[in-house]
C-alpha cells in the first residue's frame, strides 16, 4: 500500500540514493552525454523531498503534483520534464486517494509510462528510460500484487543493464549513435533505482543493486 507517509518516505529514500550514486550517474552521462544526470536527479529529488517533507497533503494527488513541480524547476535536463510528467500522471491517477493499492499502482505506473512516451517520443529500444519503465509497467499490470512489483524491480534492473548494448537514437546520446554502445543509459539506471526504492517503500525487503560505473 502506498500512503502519504510511505510516498514521502519513498521520495526521501530515492533522493538519498541518488545523492549516494550521483557520481556513478554523472560518470555514465559523461561517457555518452553531458555528464550531469546524477547531479540533475540528486538536485531535483532533494528539492522534491524537502518540499514534500515540509508540506501537508490532502491526498497522493497533491503530493505527487508537488513532486512534479519541484522537479520541473530544479532538475534542468531532459530527465526533469520526464520524471515530472511521470509524477503528474501519478497525481492524475491517484487524485483524491490517500491509499493506493496494487491495482491503482498498476494504473498509475501505466499512466506514467504513457506520459513519458508522449513527452519524449521514444519507443523501447532507443536507449532511454522508456526501456526500463516499459517492462516494469508490464510486470505490475500482469500481476498487480507484491510478486508483480518484485518482478517489476528485477525486470527494470535487467533492462537498465541491457541498454549497454543499444545504440542511442533519442536524447543526447543519439549524437553518438553507434559510439554510445558499451555504456548503460544513465536515465535507465536511475529508473531502475526508482523501482527498487518504490518497491522497498511499498513492500519492503528489496535487495538493492550495487551500481558501479566500471560494470555499467
Amino acid at each position, binding site marked *: 500500500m502506498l500512503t502519504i507517509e510511505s510516498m514521502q518516505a519513498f521520495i526521501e529514500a530515492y533522493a538519498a540514493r541518488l545523492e549516494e550514486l550521483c557520481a556513478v550517474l554523472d560518470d555514465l552521462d559523461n561517457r555518452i552525454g*553531458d555528464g*550531469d544526470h546524477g547531479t*540533475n536527479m540528486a538536485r531535483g529529488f532533494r528539492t522534491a523531498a524537502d518540499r514534500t517533507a515540509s508540506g501537508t497533503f490532502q491526498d497522493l494527488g497533491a503530493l505527487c503534483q508537488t513532486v512534479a*513541480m519541484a522537479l*520541473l*524547476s*530544479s*532538475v*534542468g*535536463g*531532459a530527465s*526533469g*520534464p*520526464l520524471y*515530472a*510528467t511521470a509524477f503528474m500522471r501519478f497525481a492524475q491517477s491517484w487524485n483524491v486517494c490517500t491509499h493506493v493499492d496494487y491495482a491503482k499502482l498498476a494504473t498509475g505506473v501505466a499512466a506514467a509510462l504513457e506520459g513519458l512516451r508522449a*513527452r*519524449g517520443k521514444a519507443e523501447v529500444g532507443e536507449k532511454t528510460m522508456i526501456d526500463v519503465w516499459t517492462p516494469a509497467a508490464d510486470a505490475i499490470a500482469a500481476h498487480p500484487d507484491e510478486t508483480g512489483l518484485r518482478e517489476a524491480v528485477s525486470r527494470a534492473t535487467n533492462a537498465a543493464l541491457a541498454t549497454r548494448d543499444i545504440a542511442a537514437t533519442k*536524447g*543526447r546520446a543519439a549524437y553518438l549513435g553507434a559510439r554510445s554502445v558499451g555504456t548503460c543509459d544513465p536515465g535507465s539506471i536511475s529508473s531502475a533505482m526508482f523501482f527498487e526504492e518504490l518497491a522497498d517503500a511499498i513492500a519492503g525487503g528489496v535487495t538493492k543493486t550495487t551500481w558501479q560505473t566500471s560494470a555499467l
Partner: protein
Amino acid sequence: MADVSIVVVSHSRQLGEGLVKLLRQLAPGVDLHQAAGLGEELGTDATAVAAALQQCPETNDILVFFDLGSAAMNAEMALELTPQSVAGRTHIVDAPLVEGAVAAAVAARSRLPVADVIQQAEAARTVPKILS
C-alpha cells in the same frame, strides 16, 4: 507595436541573454523574453518558460525558439502549465536557435502575419550563411 512575441529557451542564461540583446538591436519594439539556464547552472526550467509565456502581451502570438531537445521538452511541458488562452497562441518553432530567432525577429518587426514569421524562421535552416 509587434503582434508576435519571441521567447528564447536555452540551457545557458548567458546565451539566452546575449541572443535577446542581439535580437533587440535588429528588432527594436518586438516583445522579447528569455527563459535560459537553471539559475547559474546549465539547464532549462519549464516553470520559467511558462512564466515567460505569461509575460507576453495577451493578444500576441508567441514563438518559442530553443537550443537542444531537452529544452523543447521543457517548452512543451510549459504549454501544459499555462492556461489554454496562452498555450493556444504559442508555437514551438523547429528552427535553428540563433538563425531562426534572427529571421523571426526581423519579420516580426515588419509585423508580418505569424504564419509568415514562422515560415521565415524555418527557412533559416536552408539559407546559406556563407556567400560565394
